[in-house]
Structures are given as C-alpha cells and as structure tokens.
C-alpha cells in the first residue's frame, strides 16, 4: 500500500512514532481500551493468550496488563521495543501473530490502532459491563426525556435529527402491538385521534398496560428464555403441566411484580420464608428444560445435562453472559474460571430428581401421555381438588373394610408360616419362627413381604376386591392424567458438587460450593450460599450486570435490537453498545426506582425517540443504513405468534381467555405423524373444538420435538434464547396465504364488514382499518377497489370455487350472504393480512 493512501489512524500513528511523511492538525481523542483495543485483542489474541490457563501459549496472557508487561509483550510508549508490534508485522510464518492456522487476522488499520495505543501508554480498563453502571449527566440539549437527550446528542454528531412524530393511528398500532400483541380496534384508534388532551398518549399507555393481555405479550420472550414447552422432548416426548408456570408468569407480569422479586421467585421462590405454592411454581423456570426419557439412557448423565442447561439458562438470562465454555476449561474471553462455573452449578444441584422422566409413582401403567420427573407442586383447581377428594373418599371407604380383611389374613399367615417355606426370600424365612419373639422392625418386614408378594394371590379370592381396584385406578388415573402438577426446584437433596474434568460427569475433581464468580462483586455478607443468596447478590446495588442486561432486553423488545446488539452476551466479546451512556442511565434508574418494568417501559414509550415516524429518507439510509442512531423508528416484522393473534383479533374470532391448559388449534393434518410410528403412546393431534381454536398463540400446545409449524422464526425451545432472528422465507408467505387460520380469519372479517357497512368502499376501508389500524390513503382506496373487483370476477364466474373457499374453518358462516360476493371479499381480506404493512409494525 503506497504511503500516500494510508488511512488516517496510520497517519496519526506515523506521526506519534516519528515516521516521516505524515502530518495532521487535529488532536485525536485518546484511544479507549474498551471501545478500540479490547475487541481486537479479544477476537484475535485471547483464545491462546487470555483467561484460559490450559490453552495459554508461551505463558503469555494479554488480558491483564501486568502479565503482558512482565512478558514484555509491549512497552508503554515505545512501539519499537514492543514484541507485540514485531509479531504483528513479522513476515516469518513461525513468528507472525495471529498465526496463519488460527483463521484470525488483524487488519492494517487495527495494527495501526494497536501501535497508537501502545504509544499512548497502553492503558487498560476493565470491560465496561463488569463495572457498576453510573448515571452520566444528561446532555444539555433541551430534551427532557433522558432517552431523547442521549439519542439526539449522538444524532447531532452525525448530522441527523429525530424524525417527526408518527401519525396518531400508526402510533396507537405500534403501542398496542408492543404492549399487548393485539391490534387496536378502529374505535380505539378513533377515540385516540379525537382525544386532544396533552396526556392522550399517556392515557393509552396506561390503558394498554392495564389490559390483561399485557402480561401475555410480555411473557413471550420469557417463554423463549426458559425454553418453555408443553412436553419433555425425545422418545415418548411426555406431556407436562409446566403451563402452570406460564400462567404464573402472565399473572405476575400483569401485576407488575418488580423485576427483582419476579426474578427472585423464579430463581429461588421455594427458599423464601413461608414460600407459597405460587412462589414454588415460579421456580419452574429452571425445570422447563428438555428431559430425555429414552430407554437405556443413564439417568445421572441426563441429570448433568439438565444441570448444565440450568447454568446456561440462568447466566444468559440474568447475567447476559455465556459461561458454557467454562464447563470444560477456563473461559477463553471472559474471566470466568471453571471453578466459577461449578460453584454456580452447585446452587441448582440439590433438587430431588432423577434426571429422566417417568410415568411417576401415582400413575397406572406407563401409557399415560404425561411423564414427569420428581419434585412437583400439585396445583388443582377448586373443582379438581373436590373431585380428587371425592375419589379419595370413595377409595378410602372401600379400602377400609378391605383393610380389616387384609389384617386378618396377615395374622393367619403368620400363624402358619411354614406353608410357604422354601419359596420365601432367605431373609424373610429366617424370621418365620412361630415362637420367636419378633421385634417391631421384623414384623414390619414381614408385613411388607406379605402385602407385596403373598397377598397378591390371596386378595383375588376376597369378594368385592374388584370395586376397590377400580376405585384405586380411578384415583391414580386422576392423579396421573388430570391433576396438574408442575416440576419445580427444591433444595431437598444433599449432594456434593465437584469440578468435572472436561465437563465429563464421571470425572469428578475438587469439591465446590455455591459462590459468586470471582470477577464480579462478592456475595452480600449475610446471603445464604444457595439460590436465594444468588438472587440477593444479583439485585445488590453494586451488581454491574443484572439491571443492564434486563434494560437492554426491554430495549430490544421495543426497538427490535438491543443497545448492545448481542443481548445474550454482554461479556468481553459482545458488540459495542450503540448508546452506552443511555443504557447505563436507564439501568441505574431501573434499579433505583424499584425495578419496575412498567415504569421503565413508560419512560421509553413516552420518548420522542419511540414516538417518531418510521418513514425512511434517503439521507438517513445513506448516513446510517442500519439505523443504529435511531433517526427514525424501526419497522419490525411481527413475531409469528403475534401475526396469528392479529388475524384472530381483527376478524373478531379471538377468544381472549387468559391462561389454562394448552389448546390445539389448526395445524396441517396429523402434524405429529413423524412421531406416531411409536407404539409407546398415542401421538394423534387432538384438534381443539369451538372457541379453543381461537385462543392466543401462547396457549397453543408446544410439542418440543415438533413445534407448531405455523409459528415460524420462533425459538425451538430446546435451549435458552433471548434473541431470535427474523428471517424472510417463502415458507412464511405460504403459511399466511394458505393456513386455514388466516383463510378463516379473512372469511370472518369479510362477513363482519359486509354486515357493518353497505358500500364496497366502506367495507374495504373498514377491513383495512381493522387489520392495519389506519384508513387507506393516497392510491390505496383505488388499489383496494381493483383488488376486490378482480376477485369478484373470479368468483362470479366460479360458484363452486366460492363455495369451497367459504367452508374453510370451523366457525359458522351466515348463509344469507351472497356466496360469490363473500368469497371475493374473503380473498381480498386474505391479501390484506399479507400486506407488508400488516405483517410489519410501522
């Protein structure tokens, strides 16, 4: 590269180091270790010269300044004496760093930056998210809302401004979808437009936050984080009752339980003083994981799979760190040691559980569709509790009479024990000496043997025994197949936790107990060394991560992307934040104001930044193509679960019932056929009837082995996910064009607007408003009219096709509507659901 075309940093470096041929007039801002240096070192050097002692080459580590200086990797202020510089520029393939076979490379610009940093004194700083956040002073730019103050500051530097506020209709749709996942009705939009009071917008926020559907929308990312499903996964894929946790979640989000309490209950609800059943149910967060029930598997091995999963899920969710590497070795990038990892795991290692699900002790046979592991909380409804009592009483009455008979039989057997001699276990036979004085323990052993072995045959001879068996089967069946019971955490099982060599569960090394990772603040002094202590530690004021991680994810939910894009990782390898001062300011605010999620959201929602138009100008596209600076509101493709809800709500089909057992809405014929080859259980899809077909998406039964096919781009619920990608595939389009869910919604919407309005124009406008939340404008009315006219021509000429289209879906059609007209408008409404403006949140 000829020197005259060197980029600026090199020119600067050239001057500092006294190389000829460069000059500049601007005093550059000193380089920042976190912004400029660490990303280069971390990506290219730390794998071999970082925190992991086992993989460390030449005993050199570059993540700690003193260590690097000791080995003379660099000499502050003197690039010529710095080994690092020599290695970066070496032509010798044995010497050059990073080595060619590492598939890593440092660009010329990066090398120049490193040189300049050394020239400036090679100053280190701890990774920014490992230091507790502080509030920076708000930029004095006249913006009242802190969100705007920070955003506008950055925009101004790039020569950009916020966009004007979005039209009111757009704003209400945005707000409704973000807060409840449901579209506004035309009436709600009209009321908002008519409301000219200065607090009109805030009133809408309050109204939507008070809706019971708020908790449903807020629950969606939590379901992904806790890898929630309604079945275990793997062979048999037994169903579970974990939906009780889902209901707990929705309820508590609706009540705005402060985030620290919400989290404490999820992590350690069972350990709270006088824990309520609800607080125990909250801990199912850590029991929602995949469970392997394959024949031949090794239960203890599987239990460790669950433990690893709990470590992964809790650290990703609350620390925004990934620690899985430390399962086998010290972390390559973050200062997490293998010991830190297993100390953390100890908190989750005391559940009374096997590691693999089974039919459970109360169930009859292994054929139940439910399969659970142990430590459960039973949560019967009032009706179920009553039914259970009834069944229990029925059994008890019948059994009581029988029990007397059984006692007599036992006495008789004891009296003449010799008749079974020779067929008895040695231990029992030894005790069968009629004149021997037996201890109580010996009698107990006898009785156990008698009940289990001898009496099995004897009892068949007793009259009435069939009715007792039936009562028992009814009771067990109810307990097994109906009575809801959710797998939860407990600390009932004392177990040692050891560091595992390379993560292999049989290779136990040093014993450890729970403690906080060494590079983060220590546990509060009086905190217990268990999950409750973990929660107390997380929400202590000096904790650098808990608030930041959650605020970042709230931001991601409202803007599509986090302030740190890699919301699952705020560690050393994370993306640089787009607005670090804003994130830190909000994190402090969130903690200091009592961890209130609704308050945090309201602060963001009332900002100009959130309220601005999503229209994009060529200037914005050119200056900030990724909209990192937020010069306009992001346009977001709605999650598929929300898209389905929008179709149901806008057509009027939605059954807004909150919570309860999962439902089985339309899926393509026999959706579980690839599992149905097993003889171990029935995998017929039990399609719901009536209004259960139209419940919100989060109530759809989620089979872990085969997710509902129309919920595209969702997390597969195999492992914890806090960020899901939105993609564009023709299969998504086919779903929304052809799935009976959308076709039926279109038919019902068409029928509804036909009855409400009398002209084509009014009907089209109404349908448009119900789906898109606004009136058609510009050329849209004409284009809609053309759409309808063309479909009218199709169905006027083909009555059979119209008939066929209109019978899709279980809901009844009003037979008085003319068939061809109804079909034409149905096809039109189906098109509306598929418009970019409909699938996108503007």
């Amino acid at each position, binding site marked *: 590269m000829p020197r005259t075309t060197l980029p600026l940093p090199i020119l600067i470096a050239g001057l500092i180091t006294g190389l000829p041929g460069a000059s500049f007039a601007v005093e550059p801002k000193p380089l920042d270790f976190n912004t400029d240096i660490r990303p280069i070192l971390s990506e290219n050097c730390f794998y071999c010269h970082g925190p992991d002692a086992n993989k460390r080459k030449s005993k050199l580590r570059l993540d700690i300044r003193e260590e690097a200086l000791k080995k003379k990797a660099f000499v502050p202020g003197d690039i010529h004496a710095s080994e690092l510089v020599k290695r970066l520029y070496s032509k010798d393939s044995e010497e050059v760093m990073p080595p060619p076979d590492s598939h890593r490379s440092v660009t010329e610009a990066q090398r120049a930056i490193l040189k300049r940093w050394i020239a400036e004194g090679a100053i280190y700083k701890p990774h920014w998210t490992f230091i507790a956040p502080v509030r920076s002073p708000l930029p004095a730019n006249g913006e009242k809302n802190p969100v705007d103050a920070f955003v506008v500051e950055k925009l101004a530097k790039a020569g950009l401004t916020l966009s004007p506020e979005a039209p009111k209709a757009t704003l209400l749709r945005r707000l409704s979808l973000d807060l409840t996942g449901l579209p506004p009705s035309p009436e709600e939009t009209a009321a908002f437009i008519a409301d000219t009071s200065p607090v009109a917008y805030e009133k809408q926020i309050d109204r939507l936050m008070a809706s019971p559907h708020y908790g449903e929308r807020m629950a969606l990312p939590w379901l992904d984080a806790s890898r929630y499903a309604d079945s275990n996964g793997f062979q048999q894929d037994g169903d579970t009752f974990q939906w009780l946790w889902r209901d707990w979640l929705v309820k508590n989000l609706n009540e705005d339980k402060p985030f620290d309490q919400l989290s404490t209950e999820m992590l350690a609800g069972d350990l709270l003083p006088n824990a309520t059943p609800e607080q125990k149910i909250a801990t199912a967060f850590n029991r929602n994981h995949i469970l392997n029930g394959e024949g031949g598997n090794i239960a203890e091995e599987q239990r460790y799979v669950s433990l690893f999963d709990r470590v992964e899920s809790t650290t990703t969710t609350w620390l925004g760190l990934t620690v899985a590497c430390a399962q086998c070795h010290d972390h390559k990038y973050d200062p997490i040691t293998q010991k830190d990892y297993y100390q953390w795991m100890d908190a989750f290692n005391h559940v009374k559980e096997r590691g693999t699900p089974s039919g459970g002790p109360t169930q009859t046979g292994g054929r139940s569709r439910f399969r659970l592991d142990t430590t459960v909380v039973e949560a019967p409804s009032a009706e179920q509790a009553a039914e259970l009592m009834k069944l229990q009483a029925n059994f008890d009455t019948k059994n009581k009479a029988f029990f007397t008979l059984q006692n007599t039989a036992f006495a008789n057997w004891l009296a003449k024990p010799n008749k079974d001699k020779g067929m008895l276990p040695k231990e029992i036979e030894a005790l069968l000496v009629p004149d021997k004085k037996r201890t109580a323990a010996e009698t107990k052993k006898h009785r156990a043997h008698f009940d289990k072995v001898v009496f099995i045959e004897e009892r068949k001879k007793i009259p009435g025994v069939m009715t007792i068996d039936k009562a028992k089967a009814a009771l067990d069946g109810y307990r097994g197949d109906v009575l809801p019971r959710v797998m939860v955490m407990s600390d009932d099982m004392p177990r040692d936790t050891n560091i595992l060599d390379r993560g292999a569960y049989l290779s136990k090394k040093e014993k450890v107990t729970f403690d906080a990772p060494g590079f983060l603040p220590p546990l509060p002094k009086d905190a217990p060394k268990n999950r409750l202590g973990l929660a107390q530690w997380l929400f202590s004021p000096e904790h650098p991560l808990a608030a930041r991680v959650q605020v970042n994810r709230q931001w991601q939910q409202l803007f599509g992307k986090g302030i740190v894009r*890699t919301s*699952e990782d705020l560690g050393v390898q994370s993306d640089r934040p787009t607005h670090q001062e804003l994130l830190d300011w909000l994190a402090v605010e969130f903690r200091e104001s009592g961890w209130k999620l609704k308050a945090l959201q309201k602060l963001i929602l009332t900002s100009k930044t959130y309220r601005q138009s999503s229209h994009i100008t060529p200037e914005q596209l050119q200056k900030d193509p990724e909209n990192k600076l937020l010069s306009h509101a992001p346009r977001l493709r709605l999650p598929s679960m929300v898209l389905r809800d929008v179709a149901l709500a806008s057509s009027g089909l939605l059954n807004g019932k909150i919570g309860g057992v999962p439902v089985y809405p339309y899926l393509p014929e026999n959706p579980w056929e690839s599992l149905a080859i097993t003889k171990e259980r029935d995998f017929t899809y039990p399609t719901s009837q009536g209004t259960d077909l139209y419940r919100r998406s989060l109530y759809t039964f989620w089979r872990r082995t085969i997710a509902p096919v129309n919920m595209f781009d969702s997390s597969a619920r195999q492992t914890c996910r806090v960020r899901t990608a939105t993609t564009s595939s023709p299969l998504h389009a086919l779903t929304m064009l052809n799935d009976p869910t959308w076709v039926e919604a279109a038919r019902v919407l068409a029928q509804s607007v036909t009855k409400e309005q009398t002209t084509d124009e009014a009907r089209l406008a109404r349908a448009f408003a119900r789906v898109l939340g606004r009136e058609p404008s510009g050329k849209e009315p004409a284009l809609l009219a053309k*759409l309808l006219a063309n479909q009218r021509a199709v169905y006027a000429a083909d009555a059979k096709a119209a008939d066929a289209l209109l019978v899709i879906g279980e809901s009844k059609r009003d037979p008085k509507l003319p068939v061809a007209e109804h079909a034409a408008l149905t096809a039109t409404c189906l098109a509306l659901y598929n418009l970019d403006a409909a699938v996108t949140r503007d």
Partner: protein
Amino acid sequence: MDFELSPSEWRTRLTRRSFLSAGVQGIGAVALGSLLARDAKAAANPIGGLPGLPHFAPKAKRMICLWQGGGPSHVDLFDHKPLLEKMAGQEIPASVRGDTRLSSMSSGYAKYNCVGAIKPFKKWGSSGIEMSEMLPFTGAIADELCIVRSMNTEAVNHAPGVTFFMTGSQIPGRPSMGAWLSYGLGTMNEDLPSYVVMTSSDTAKTCGQLFFEHYWSNGFLPGKHQGVRFRGVGDPVPFVGNPAGVSRDARRTMLDDMQALNREHLGQVGDPEIDTRISQYEMAFRMQASVPDLLDFKNEPKSVLEMYGPDVLNPGTFANNCLIARRLAERGVRFTQLMHSGWDQHNNLTTGQLAQQCLDTDQASAALVKDLKQRGLLDDTLVVWGGEFGRTPFGQNQQGQGFKGRDHFGRAYSWWLAGGGVKPGYVHGATDEFGWNITKDRVHIHDMQATLMHLFGINHEGLLFRYQGRQFRLTDVEGHVVKGILKQA
C-alpha cells in the same frame, strides 16, 4: 428484515429488485420446463451464502444423507469377522472389551458372548469388497463405494447419537449440517427449500426411534436455514397448496394487486425491506409450482422406476424418498436428509427384521447411486449411508432366551459414501478380529463432519457463527479431514 445480511445477500437483493421491476406479471407465466434451466444457472451462482465461501474449489455441490436410524449392525453387514463365528458362544476377552461404555441395557452383563454374522459375506465387484449377501444391490455397486469401517462415536443412545452427527453436539440446540451449508453456501434454487428432510419408517414399525425436529434445526442460525421436512400426509411442504377454491390464476391476480399495494406503501415509507417482502411472495408463488413438479414422476422412464424397486411409487417409503432425493439433486437442492428407522435390533435381528430392513433399503440406496451416475450427477453429489452407531459383536438377550439381537455399539461401526469426491471401490479403516476396537484410521464423528465439509470446499474450522460471544462451528473444537477417503487428497 434479515438478522444479518451478508454482502452477497445485498447483491442478490439488488439484482432481484431490478428483475422484479422488469415485470412481476411475467414471472407467473414462466413455463415450468424452463425452471430447471434457470436452476442450473443458479447452481453456478448460488444465492445468499457468505463471502469467501467456498474456501476452495469444492468436489461436492450437494449431499444426500441416507440416514439409517437405530444403528445398522456393522458385524452383520459391512465388517466381516470370521472369528465371531468360530468363537460363537464363547466370551469376548475382557482385554478386548476394555472400559467400553455400553448402554444400560447390557452394561451389567456377566458375560459377553461372541455371535457371528447371521448370513454369509461375499466379495463384490472388481474391488472385491466384502459385504453381506443380504445387500445384493449395494454389493453390485461396490466399485462405486467408499466403505468406512472405523467410524467412532461417544454416544450410547439414539437421540444423542443422531444429534451428534447432525449438529456436532449430543445435546439438542445447535445448527445441523444442512443448516450450516445453507448458511455458508447459500441456495442454488430459490424455488425449493435449500435443505430438505424426508422420513420413512420400517415396514414392521418395530421401534420407537422417532424423528425430532432438532435433527434438522437451524439452532442459533437464522430461521430460514432450518431443514424443511416433506410430509407424508397432506401438503408435502406445509401450506404449499392453495386453499380450496383458490386457483393458481386467482392467486396470481391477488398477488399482483397485493404487490401494487406494497409498492404504494414502499413509496410512502421508503423502506427497502418492502422490496424483500415483495420478492418473498414471488418466491412463494414459484415454489407452489416447483414442488408439485418435483413430485410428479410422470416423465420418469419405466426403467428408472423399476431400478428403485417395487415401493418407488408409494409415498412415504424409503424408495420413494430416494427417487425424490435424486430429483432434488437435479434441481440443485444442496442438502437432502433422508431418515429411515428400523435398525434398532435388540431382539429381532435374527427374527427377520434385519433381513426386512435390507430388503427395504438395499435396492433403492444402490439405485440412487446408479441413477445419479447415469445422469452425470454422482461426481459432484455426495451420498452418505449410515446410522448413529453399530451393534455389539456380542448377542443381546442371550441369557435364557438365546440370541435374538445386538445392543448399541459406538466404539466401531461402518458407513459407506459414494460420489462427490470420495475414493470409489475403497475400504477405509479396520477393526480388530472381534469388530470391537478400531485398529486402523479411526474416523470420529467430528472427523467425518470435517471431511464432508472439506468436500464442499469448506475448511471446517473456518465456517463460523458468532453466538453468545463465541465462534461456533459444526465440529465444535475438534475434527480432522480424513485425507485417506478423498479421491484426490
């Protein structure tokens, strides 16, 4: 609104945009016959994918994985051990068995008695490769095959074993190989899914080896890289058919009017993503033609149909899926994953199940290889045949009941590969005379993955995805390319 858009995807978008503005109306009228020609062109210029990939000239452009679920018995089919016959009923020495981890079904056995192959072996072709007489069709193409007799896995059970080969980890959650290839290399035919999965169960429906979605998961890669499973009932691809009462013409008309509204919106909003939406719906419309065309066998000559065997026209059978796999390969689909169950022969290996499995899979597997070859596709299409492990050289259920089957065995087992740059008529690796330990050229699962990626022109250590602050790859932190099986190393 793609999560991460690579430069080549941007390029694609731009081209597509100009293509669309040339006339959306025209696309629907493209004759089906010309689809194939267009696909051939796309094969030369894949759409999507990462810049810099492939890393070097690939030998394979597509792969068809003929997954044999349950674990076929290597000692009965591919790895002849006369000593097991000679020592039948006698114990396999403890010195041979070592500390091998066995499933909890046989780990407690007092004795591990030798059981020889249930049917004789035979030398096949001019290469003289030994295989069971139970595989006459496979035997007949022995000179095309590369047999690997030194496969090795740590998994002791099915789902972890399958997950291990498909995703590089025994625990579900990582992207599968097909997803990695779709992500790294893009698609050669946008009108069909780039990663197709088909499943079939054995005739007797003997076992519970089920097909879980995580076997074709996109893991942490963007959702569009997930495998698309062709279903045996209803629409082969979910929702590919129009609803009743919507004809293709009516749909075309509706899409045209819909796209006009989208373009109007684009004018108002100025978001280039709306262009992506428009093309997404056009691709969907084309896929609605491509899928039925794919599955329409009416132009297949009788001789070809007969080659695949009597099941070929029965949807959902292995033979039927094999023929579809060939048609997918012709259309440029990158990765086709057939999954067949029924090899988990704990207690029915001798009672007809092994023989039945061979009958169900032998002819069609061989036909696929021959068919690809006669069309000139074998050179750059990789065919891989194998399961999650092999089966124990000792018998299961021998206590009291006599020998009826064998347990899971991952320490050593056999696969075969064909085409796509592997050595034909060649045997790689060997086991000891009990078929227990590998004595030569171990091929661990990660090594096999590294090798398959290599054949696609990919350095397995260089196809990475940054997730949770770490660079993930299919082969985790291991894997070496098995140079020995490459036609040209």
